[in-house]
């Protein structure tokens, strides 16, 4: 039953991705001033929103870990952090391609672009911090504190374009077919993001279970070292 539901989930994700591509290619019209390049927006915006959600998941799981000290919360934070890097890479790549066509340059140091790059680097460093600490308890603790601090950049990315002068557009007026296409693209990107976090979380949890440390147990003849059987 569980396997069937997972299969259905991924089939719906594949179908909605195919539907989204078909809508971009055949249904939604080109925007009058920007032309076909505006169509990057349908992938760029959902990926940006899902980046925020992945960062938020990482933040909440990290706060939860600091309060409850449950290993599964650390596994969830690690999974969400990794997916946040993936999604932020897509946001930066699609944004740069947009920039090259719309503004004539791949990159400009505007506030939103700079804070987005900082966000990407912060979460790459989060993964590097995790990889560099061997002790699982120490790693979970330091990573949780780091993730909470790293999350402070998310509101800066969101607010920068409103608080400071920026080349990045704040809003784009959309016709109905464009709105429908944008709404349709939220489905595959959100499903993919959630699916990736759950997949990675399950892999992390299994890896933790299979790598439980060998701990000493006291017997009448002294300490006996044995692997914990999960």
């Amino acid at each position, binding site marked *: 039953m569980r396997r069937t539901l997972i299969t259905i989930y991924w089939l719906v994700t594949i179908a909605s991705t195919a539907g989204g591509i078909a809508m971009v290619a055949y249904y939604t019209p080109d925007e009058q001033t920007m032309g076909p390049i505006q169509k990057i927006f349908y992938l760029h915006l959902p990926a940006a929103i899902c980046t925020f959600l992945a960062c938020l998941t990482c933040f909440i799981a990290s706060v939860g870990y600091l309060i409850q000290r449950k290993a599964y919360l650390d596994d969830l934070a690690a999974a969400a952090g990794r997916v946040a890097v993936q999604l932020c890479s897509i946001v930066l790549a699609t944004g740069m391609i947009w920039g090259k066509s719309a503004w004539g340059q791949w990159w400009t140091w505007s506030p939103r672009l700079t804070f987005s790059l900082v966000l990407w680097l912060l979460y790459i460093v989060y993964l590097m911090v995790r990889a560099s600490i061997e002790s699982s308890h120490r790693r979970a603790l330091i990573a949780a504190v780091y993730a909470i601090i790293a999350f402070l950049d998310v509101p800066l990315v969101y607010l920068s374009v409103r608080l400071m002068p920026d080349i990045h557009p704040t809003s784009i007026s959309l016709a109905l077919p464009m709105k429908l296409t944008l709404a349709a693209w939220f489905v595959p990107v959100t499903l993919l993001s959630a699916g990736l976090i759950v997949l990675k979380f399950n892999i992390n949890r299994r890896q933790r*279970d299979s790598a439980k440390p060998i701990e000493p147990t006291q017997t009448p003849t002294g300490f006996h070292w044995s692997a914990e059987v999960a």
Partner: protein
Amino acid sequence: MSGSQFVILAYVIGLGLLWGYAAVLLCSARSGNGAKS
């Protein structure tokens, strides 16, 4: 490069990253990577 080519490039990179990572995770989950020993 025309506008349409930029759009295709953006979608290939974006979806390639997402689905590529999904394929890697699905393969490692199926092959029992990190499974209980």
